[in-house]
Every structure is written in C-alpha cells, then in structure tokens.
C-alpha cells in the first residue's frame, strides 16, 4: 500500500495517474470479492461505487455494481435500465468509447426489492404450491413493498445470491442511504427476527397456558385495532411463511460471514461537510465494533487537490482598469477562498489518516459526473494508473 499516513501532504496533491502511483484502493479493487461503500446521504456513494466498479473492469475483472436509486443520469450514462429484473451489462461499445478496452466486464443492477424478495421466496419455499400461496397472499404484495428496512434487507439478500453464483469476481455494493450505519448488515437478522417462529407462533392458534394467554392478548389487541379480518389474514400469511425462517437466517449468517471475511472490504465515503464527517466517524466506530474489514476513507467534493492550478495573482494582467482588471481581482478573491478551503480539506484528510487508516481525496472534476468518460476519469483518480490488459489491439 502506498500513501503512508505519516506523509499526508504527498498523495493528497498528487493525482495518482500523473504521478504513476497506485492508491490504497488499487489492491482492494484488484483482489477483493466484495467492496462495500458506506456513508451519509448525498456524499456521492453511487458515483464512487460506479467508478470503483469501472476501475475493477479496467483491471480485467468481471464486476457487478449493485446500486440503490442511482441518479437517473448516472443510470443513463452506465446504460442500465431502471426496473430490470437482473443485472445488465454495460454495453462494450460504450465502454470502448470511454476508453475501457480490457478483458474485464461491467454489469450494474439497480436493486429491485420486489424481485429480490420474490427470488428468495422461490428459493426457500421449495414446492410450487407454497410459492404460489405466498405470492398470491394479499399481504405479501404489500410486505414486499413496505416492510421497514426492506432496502437494507434486499441489498443483503441480493449480495448473498449474487456472491453465491460466482459469476462475478467483484461486487461493489452501494449501500442504501441509511442513517443507522450498516443497517443492511443487520437487516436480514432483524427481518428474520420478526419472522421468527416464536413471534409468529404467537399469532397462530396454540396450546399451553402461558402461550395461550399471550396469544389471547395479541388477538384482542389486533382485533380491536385492525379488525377481525386482518388478524385472520395475518395468521394465514405468517403460517404460509413459517418454515422459511431457517433458510432466511442461514442467508443472514452467510452474508455476515462473507462480509467479515478478508474477501470483503468496507470503504467510507464522505464529504467535508461536518454532518457527513460525523456520520463517517460513527460508521468507522461501528465497522470496528462489528468486526468487518475497513478499507479506508474516500473524501469527495473536497477542494483538497490544487496541483496544476495557477494563482491569478501571479498572472500578469495587462492594464489596471476595465472589466479584465476588476474581474481579475474578484477572481483572486475567489482563489484565496479556494486556497483556504484546500488547506482546510487537506488537514481534514491528514486527520482522517491520523489513525493509521488510508484516505484519499477525489479531485474536482467540474460538477457532477454524468457520463462514462467522467467515471473513467474518476476511476483513474481514485485507483491510480490503470494499465488495461487487452488482448486485442486497441485502435489507438
């Protein structure tokens, strides 16, 4: 790994591509099976995930980017449909046009909770009759849309399924914008907990004095609040589900095992915003607590990188009056401001590295990344020079 924490000033200002250095992200994108991007909402997780996925493909791997609710233009840029039932490949000609010529492939999928949940029911229910019974249940139709934490649950379930079939060398997971850090890691457990036999048992007709008393309380409460019809429907629904819980818990455990193994890494994406930083630090603590492997920080939307930019003060402007001169002095003021922000963001980066962790600041790419070539530029800036192994002779 490059970028020793004791020299924060060095990699900060060096765009890796130009300096010929690889960043700490390079070995992660090259070797890991799962890269999880976490962070507060609005810090650029989706764009970062897409760029890392692209970097993986440029290194020759078969990559899948699993994303939740990406910005529409990003979906368009990557060429992924909004409501696909399975991952879609980024068209090779599109990749080639953006300068990606290697052997790697890139797929992307915008998670679809209904599809993921249905897939799970099909895999776990074993017989067709039961599958039909569950899918036809009126409550199921809404559970798949409305269960709290469903996004987190689907992310974990999809990760489980896609990691199982080994079609991809690398899966980059863009986590749901969840305030509760890493909820998706715990979501399957929570859902499995809710659909626990003991809990469900309380809704079902039962024997035994203690359970009967509890069931009767539940029955009274539910009937009085929701009406008798709903209570019966719920019993029917949960009855149809019982027997699948063991399988759901097994999935939850498998996801956990994968994510706590050395095959996975968690990256924290943040912006210099105090609230985003506070959340990132909270995530970091949580990552340590859960014992999942931490890869490092990616500081987005910062002003840290200023290499190659000239100060307008130092540029000779002809004449001392007129719009050029007055405009120039205003630009100098903006430049002073940018320099202050750059200083602030660099010490922030140094601070993130201070605890022996890796951190990198993405360069300013002029507004939002809106197309594949923007993502390629970002991938290069994040990961370093990507020497593409191509067997065919590239046209250029």
């Amino acid at each position, binding site marked *: 790994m490059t970028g020793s924490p004791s020299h924060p000033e060095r990699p900060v200002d060096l765009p890796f591509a130009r300096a010929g250095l690889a960043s700490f992200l390079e070995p992660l994108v090259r070797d890991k099976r799962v890269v999880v991007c976490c962070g507060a909402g609005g810090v650029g997780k989706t764009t970062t995930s897409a760029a890392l996925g692209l970097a993986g493909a440029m290194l020759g791997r078969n990559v899948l980017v699993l994303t939740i609710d990406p910005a529409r233009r990003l979906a368009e840029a990557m060429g992924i449909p909004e409501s696909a039932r399975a991952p879609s490949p980024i068209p090779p000609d599109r990749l080639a046009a953006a300068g990606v010529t290697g052997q790697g492939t890139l797929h992307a999928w915008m998670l679809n909770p209904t599809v993921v949940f249905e897939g799970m029911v099909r895999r776990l229910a074993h017989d067709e009759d039961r599958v039909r019974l569950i899918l036809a249940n009126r*409550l199921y139709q809404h559970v798949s849309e409305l269960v*709290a934490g469903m996004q987190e649950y689907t992310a974990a379930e999809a990760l489980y399924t896609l990691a199982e079939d080994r079609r991809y060398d690398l899966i980059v997971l863009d986590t749901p914008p969840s305030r509760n850090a890493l909820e998706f890691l715990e979501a399957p457990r929570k859902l499995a907990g*809710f659909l626990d036999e003991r809990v469900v048992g309380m809704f079902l007709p039962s024997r035994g004095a203690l359970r009967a008393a509890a069931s009767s*309380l539940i029955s009274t*409460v539910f009937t009085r609040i929701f009406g008798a019809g*709903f209570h019966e429907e719920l019993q029917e629904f949960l009855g149809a589900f019982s027997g699948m819980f063991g399988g759901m818990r097994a999935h939850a455990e498998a996801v956990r095992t994968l994510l706590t193994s050395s095959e996975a890494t968690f990256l924290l994406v943040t912006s210099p915003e*105090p609230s985003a930083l506070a959340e990132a630090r909270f995530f970091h603590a949580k990552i340590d607590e859960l014992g999942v492997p931490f890869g490092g920080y990616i500081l987005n939307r910062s002003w840290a990188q200023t290499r190659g930019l000239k100060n*307008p003060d130092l540029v000779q402007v002809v004449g001392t009056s007129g*719009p050029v001169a007055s405009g120039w002095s205003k630009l100098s003021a903006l430049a002073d401001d940018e320099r202050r922000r750059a200083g602030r963001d660099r010490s922030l980066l140094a601070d993130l590295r201070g605890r022996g962790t890796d951190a990198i600041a993405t360069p300013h790419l002029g*507004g939002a990344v809106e197309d594949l070539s923007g993502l390629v530029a970002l991938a290069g800036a994040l990961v370093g020079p990507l020497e593409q192994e191509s067997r065919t002779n590239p046209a250029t």
Partner: protein
Amino acid sequence: MCCDRVVSPLLERIAGLRAVMVTGKGGVGKTTVTATLARLLAASGKRVLCGEIAADQETSSPLMAALTGEGTSAIEPVEVLPGIATVVLQPTRGHHAFLRDSLKIHVLANAAMRSQVIRRFLLAAPTFPELGILYRVLELERERLPGGRHVWDTILLDLPATGHALALAQIPASILRIIPGGPIVEAVREGLRVLRDPAQAGAVIVTLPETLPVSEALELAAGLVKHEIPLAGFVLNRVPVDPFDPGEREAVRAHAATVGPLLGMRSLDRIERARGPRAAVARHLRAMDHPRGGVGGRAGVARPPDGDPRR
C-alpha cells in the same frame, strides 16, 4: 443572524403553520435549515419545537449540533435555546399513544406495549414506524397550556430523507391497502387532517443549486402535491454569491483561456452552474401558482456555503 430579509417570504408563510416538514435529499442541509428556521421563528416571538427522527438507540443528534453545538435531544421536549425546544421522535412512543387511544383501556394498552411480539410487529411491519411518528407529532401538536393556548406555536420536523415526507403522506393509503377495516383507519384519517390542511401544515423542500438536486426536488414536490401534502416552499441552499458583472465574467473567461487552469475558476464554474437551477425553481413556483418560497442567496443558512469541518 444572517439573511432574514432573503428568507422572509418563506418565513412569513410558515409562521402561521402548526407543523412544518423540512424535507429533501441527504446532504443538502435540512438540519441546518430546520435550525435556522427555528431561530428565525423564535426571534419573532414564537415558541418552536424541533423534532428529529431517530432510531431507538441513536446517540448522535445532528439537530442539537446545529442548534447548540452539543448534546442530544430527549424523548420529551426540552428547551435548548430561548423559545426553542427539541425532541426526538421515536415510533415506540407514538405506538403507545396510538394503542391507548384506540383500545380506550389503559391497562390493555400498557400490557400490549409490554408484549415483545406486538412491539416487534409494530416496528417491523409495514408503515407502522411512520404511523408511530405521525401519532407522536399529533400528540405534541395537541398539547396545551393551562390557559388553553398551544404549548408549541410551530413544530418543525427535520425529516431524515426524501422518502420520509412521502411515507408520512402515504400512511392512510398504505394502511388502507393492508388493513381495509378497523378503528385504525379512522384514527389515521383524522391524524392526517392536520398535515393536509394548508392553513396548518406545509412541507419545505431543501435542495442545492445544481441541476440534478433541483430536478429531484421538483419531483419530490410533485409527489407531495399528489398525496395532498401542501408545499410551503423551497430553500435553495448554499447558493454561491456571484461577485461578477457580465462584462467581468466574460473578460475573465477570455483571459483565463489563454493562461491555463487557475485557482478560483472552480468557484466561477460553480457560480455559473447555480444559475440554471435557481431559475428552474422560480419557474416551478410560478407555474404552480403557489405562494413564493424562500429562493435566494444562501437562503437563510447561517454558515459558509461549503461548511467548515472544524465548525
């Protein structure tokens, strides 16, 4: 306090409301806007309650950080600044109030809340967490002083993500889909009456002056209107101040093109990108024939445009 002049049309509009939902995509500054609106309302003599939504064991409090720089809010309102109280809204608390109201028997409600199964059901099952939050808000809204005056003139809700305002708006429809009968439906309808009354409630959508955030904000506005949640206005946050006149801008651009990449040009680009989105929000407001929102420079946000990580 900065910019009350700029924010005043929006402020005027929300000053008479009982409940204001501050919403928008993550990272746009909803919490800071909530805190600023609270300060401005309190400065005009209102008693304001700011509610933040948190999971049951949340330890950090962005709202308190924005208001006082430290501390956490509690499940009961606590005055943290003159005229401003904060409260953390937890679904469980609302569930209890809801069970009490609909079961009409306290002992039964208490027994029900002690039941692990019912608590877990209410937290995991469709829309109930949102219902709990709605119920808690309404409980706070109804609180009165001995003289009959409302305890809180205005309740500001700092909603964590775009989905929440819509989720609150969709409660009756969702509940109806799942539970076609039972007393819950009536209770929910009654509960939403306040949130749907433009004289009593409104949503404030916070967004940034960039193309994508603004188009998402306009979609959110359409979604809210569709679910009959009145829109009080937009706050376009972190609008960069434009120091240039058109002649200067052109001259600087032309000259910069000959000398290469310059410090300061990133800021200039940002200023120029901000113009289109500002116009889009203004157009939207005119097209909606809606009371004007607070669209303007930094729209009432008391901090530098890009935030300062060291506060």
